[in-house]
């Protein structure tokens, strides 16, 4: 994937991207953005302005818990980890996106484009 996905589409997928990453291990904001960029080959790119409101919103919903902890370099960073409620959101959200892609594929033949 070389082309960057437009911000509106990327924003919609943000919850799933963050939940999927944090299901593996707790991470702090910069690491979350970096890993999303790396794993999607730069197609999804979360900036500071798009990432933190999303993280705070998910924290408010009780899907994530933030806590300060030193990183490997010994600097204090605010890590996020999934709560049981957040973990519970992951499977339905994945299913929702799967259904969305199937619907879009049936409509616009996305997978053959």
């Amino acid at each position, binding site marked *: 994937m070389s082309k960057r996905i437009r911000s509106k589409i990327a924003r919609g997928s943000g919850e799933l991207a963050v939940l999927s990453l944090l299901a593996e291990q707790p991470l702090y904001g910069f690491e979350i953005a970096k890993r999303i960029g790396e794993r999607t080959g730069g197609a999804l790119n979360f900036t500071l302005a798009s990432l*933190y409101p999303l993280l705070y919103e998910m924290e408010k919903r009780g899907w994530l818990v933030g806590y300060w902890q030193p990183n490997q370099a010994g600097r204090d960073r605010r890590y996020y980890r999934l709560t049981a409620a957040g973990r519970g959101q992951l499977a339905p959200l994945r299913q929702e996106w799967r259904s969305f892609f199937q619907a879009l594929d049936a409509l616009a033949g996305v997978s053959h484009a």
Partner: protein
Amino acid sequence: MPDWKKLVEERLTTLRLPPSAKQDVVAELAAHLEDSASADRASNEPVRPAIAHIPWCKLANAIEHSKREQGTMNRRSKTFWFPAMAILFALGLILLLRDSAAVLQRLIWMACMAMLLCTAASEAKRLNRRTRCFWLPGFVSLTAASVWLFDIDIVYDPSLFFRQISLHPQDLLRWNSASPRSFYFMWLIAQVAFGALGAFFSSRAGGTRSARFLAGAFPAMVIVGTYVGLVPITARISGQAFTSPLAAYLGSAMLVWVAAPAIAVLAGASPFLSESNIAR
């Protein structure tokens, strides 16, 4: 190395949050910019003037919107759910304290309370964090406690409990007294289950350790407030006398109504208080 915190703080002047929450946001964003600059330097790329490209005003609004109502009840909870639960619980308590309340009335109250809790739980996604992690689990545990009190009331006379244990808690500590000791111990043992119930629901909603404990301790806190606070006042007004000095009454009341239930609640809530439990 720029002072990232100062730079962020200067640009987030429009962010209206409580000081501690704002400091947290500033520190977090500053850390992100610092990491970003370090990464650019490490890859021998020119350090991008990232700070100049950030829409700070828009970001402040977005953060404010994301954080709003965190730590306080939202409008719907404040104006509907909390008063509705409080009224229903108060009605139930009145029924409990009145010997004349018919079993049918009590069952209706329990059904209403259960329906209200189920409806509130179904709206849990829209509730804010404190309501979801503390008030809702607290009311679930309180309802269970009320149902339990209704239940044991069939076997024991609540007025006996009200008169003897509330006004003379020290009687419980005397082995040969005629105090309804079994009533009290049934209530006390049940606190273990209520502590577990409240802490479990709070833990499911992502509550902090203190929120989980308080949600479990909710019924005990209400009972403590009622009996330690209201009973002596009511007794004074109605002319009922304490049989012992006030200090002895308060000492026994603290032990019987505060320390013992707190230990029971803690025992019940303890499986849900560990850090690993939050991260499940």
